[in-house]
């Protein structure tokens, strides 16, 4: 994998579950999504974004979780973001 633009971000993960995931993937030599480095770098911002995503995608709502994921996938496709 190519390094991300910000090596300090990649090399300074904060203690968090996603940091453990990065370590596990690295030691197993498997590819992993590099957004994990961003998640691990700013744990508080990530927790807040995660709470927002959880509520948006799985909170009480007449739209099923499947339809909501489809909207997210369609928007990401429109934004040319394959991940």
């Amino acid at each position: 994998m190519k390094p991300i633009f910000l090596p300090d971000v990649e090399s300074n993960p904060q203690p968090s579950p996603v940091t453990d995931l990065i370590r596990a993937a690295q030691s197993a030599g498997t590819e992993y999504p590099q957004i994990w480095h961003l998640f691990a770098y700013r744990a508080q911002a990530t927790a807040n974004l995660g709470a927002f995503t959880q509520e948006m995608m799985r909170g009480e709502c007449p739209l099923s979780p499947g339809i909501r994921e489809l909207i997210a996938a369609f928007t990401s496709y429109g934004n040319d973001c394959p991940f």
Partner: protein
Amino acid sequence: MPHIRLSEGLPGIRGLFAFRPETAKPLCELAEVLLHTPGTLSLAERELIATYVSSQNDCYYCQTAHGAIAACHLDGDQSIISEVKRDFEHASVSEKLKSLLAIAGKVQRGGKNVQLEDVERARRQGATDQEIHDTVLIAAAFCMYNRYVDGLATWAPQDPASYRERAAKVARDGYLAIPADVQAARAERSQA
């Protein structure tokens, strides 16, 4: 007129915060981390980045609200805000902030526009990885907030003066305090 039925009298994102408290909470907490917790970028610099991105997205409510908050952090100086919106490369701000605004502008047009040379320019001006990271996240988050506010056609007062009182409170207290009018609108909605 908003596309969905919102409480009357609450402009911009505040009407949406009253409509959906569950999503309002993490959105406000994200704004607090990005714009109001101590860091090496000043609060004025971070609000200027948010204001610039909102103006590029043509979001009147967000650019006026955050421009007013930036002005509070700049002792009331409105001229820097107009300069940054018009042509930040010639505004009276630091070379470092110009390089970060250039990155923010590219994120606004699409994340893939940011190139290594943009990052290197910011580094040459002394920006740290954390500052570059936060610039990108502020820009990306404001694209979300701007689209949220305009995608539901929320109402925005046209007189910039009407934003100042609320801006002073946010500049002082941050983004976590729920304004009394939003609380009242939530109470009314839950009774209805």
